[in-house]
């Protein structure tokens, strides 16, 4: 007991603050969410949350968020690599730009991306000639989510990359490994935990994103309707219980995905260690 007190001074106090902090800002809102849904019977909750249109909105939300997070995992890593490993003029500015999606109100981002990618926009018009539509399709949703969630991946990976000494790579090279092998066997195992964290953060953020997506999605039922919109729709109707039912299912599903990602991470870590 005394030993642990010495290692973590004020353990009782900090632990108390931690639990009440979490309780107040995380647990309490969750409980009130659950209580709101309690207006409905379990059967009603299930029937609301498994309505065909709601199910299709889950598919859109989960599919687009996963894809956006995956895209960011690849290109975000590349971006982080360039920012950490190379020195070039304007590096600091690019580094700052990465955070722009955090600072910009997402609705503004959504409107800007929509007018760019609509079939009369700068990017949308040439694409439209090739028969590719971005705005008002699922592709548009992915574009908005990639924008919004980019900082999560980059900022998760950057500090790890900074710690990762190029010596290891050189060691690999002297042992005769090629670039790809070094990346796969040396860099990636080190990056994996941070990459997974960034990926899951991006994915979770994408699931809940409303402000930007709502402008670019077109919101057509069964095609581009996202789950948060189904929640807002019910709130607009003053149907708090039903809105919460949809939200609860979403929460459970994202918990499941996060759990899976975490398992993956643990297994990967064990694999790398062994």
């Amino acid at each position, binding site marked *: 007991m005394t030993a642990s007190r010495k290692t973590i001074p004020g353990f009782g106090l900090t632990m108390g603050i931690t639990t009440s902090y979490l309780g107040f800002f995380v647990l309490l809102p969750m409980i009130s969410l659950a209580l709101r849904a309690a207006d409905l019977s379990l059967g009603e909750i299930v029937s609301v949350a498994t309505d065909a*249109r709601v199910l299709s909105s889950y598919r859109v939300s989960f599919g687009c968020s996963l894809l956006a997070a995956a895209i960011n995992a690849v290109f975000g890593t590349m971006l982080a690599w360039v920012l950490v490993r190379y020195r070039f003029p304007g590096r600091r500015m690019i580094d700052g730009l990465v955070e722009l999606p955090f600072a910009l109100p997402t609705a503004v981002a959504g409107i800007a991306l929509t007018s760019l990618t*609509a079939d009369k926009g700068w990017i949308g018009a040439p694409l439209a000639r090739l028969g590719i539509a971005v705005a*008002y399709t699922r592709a548009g949703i992915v574009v908005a989510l990639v924008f919004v969630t980019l900082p999560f991946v980059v900022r998760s990976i950057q500090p790890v990359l900074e710690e990762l000494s190029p010596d290891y790579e050189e060691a690999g090279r002297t042992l005769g490994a090629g670039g790809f092998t070094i990346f796969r066997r040396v860099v990636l195992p080190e990056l994996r935990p941070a990459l997974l964290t960034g990926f899951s953060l991006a994915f979770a953020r994408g699931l809940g994103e409303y402000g930007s997506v*709502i402008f670019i999605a*077109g919101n057509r039922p*069964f095609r581009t309707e996202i789950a948060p*919109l189904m929640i807002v729709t019910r*709130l607009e*109707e003053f149907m708090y219980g039903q809105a919460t039912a949809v939200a609860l299912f979403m929460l459970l599903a994202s918990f499941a995905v996060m759990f899976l990602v975490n398992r993956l991470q643990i297994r990967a870590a064990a694999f790398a260690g062994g």
Partner: protein
Amino acid sequence: MSRRVAMVLALLFLFGQVAAGRVLADQELTNVSYDPTRELYEAYNEAFARHWAGLGKGDVTVVQSHGGSAKQARSVIEGNEADVVTLARAIDVTAIEEAGLIGKGWQGRLARNSCPYTSTIVFLVRKGNPKGIRDWGDLAREGVGVITPNPKTSGGARWNYLAAWAWADAQYGHDDARNEEFVKKVFDNVLVLDSGARGSTNTFVQNGQGDVLLAWENEAYLSLAERPGEFEIVTPPTSILAEPPVALVDSYVDKKGTRELATAYLEYLYSDEGQRIAGSHYYRPGNPEIIKEFSGYFDLSLKLVTIDDPLFGGWEAAQSRHFSDGGVFDRIYSR
């Protein structure tokens, strides 16, 4: 001695003046409104402040809040202490009434169902009206791209849907199945279903999507004014009378002691000046004399159905039949 008394009295008087002045200067009123009234109330608040000061009642600052109508109603219910609400639909005010913040029978307190100004649903089309859209029936034609907000998330858009329904009902001889088939066709033509009116306007005006935007008349005129020469307004022969009501939030005005001010604020909307401000912001003034001054841009021959028409039977009935979960609107979009 008497000089000292006089001094004290003079000082007290001065203090009183300052205090009274401060009380007067501190008058503040919160008006929780919906999105497209931003410009209207900017102008009206100035006019009302002048009017109020002119009565010798001191300065008043009006704090405005805008957003989706139902969302705004919800914020008031959840503790946004509005003195007055000026929303898109009576049912949103009724929701606040049901929460116990507004007295029963609020809609009878002010003239014309507590609606100082009204509007209607018109079509905004591209210059020259290339698709020849004249009436509601044209919206269901193949190849016509329609832009409207989602009636489920936008209070304003419910009028769009109901106007289409009313047209179909008259056209097809009160046959509900055919009405439903018609609105389904219209919504099959909807290219982008934005969550709010401003989003739809943006989609149609800025991003160039679709051939026709279903819009409130005042919004359509704003788009016309913003981008002259790009669009035209088509007023269909029949439409719906959109009645955005205003109400005092009893609980909050009593708590804050602003009842007199808030009452005057709403009543002045009915004054000649208030009515002209509404008219110049493209809302139809309720005063039958003043609306004539604006006949240049209001088609006064337009046949307007109201929400209290037996066809709809008031907001509550229309709401539960058309927009509730599993209602007609959900059926249109089910598989």
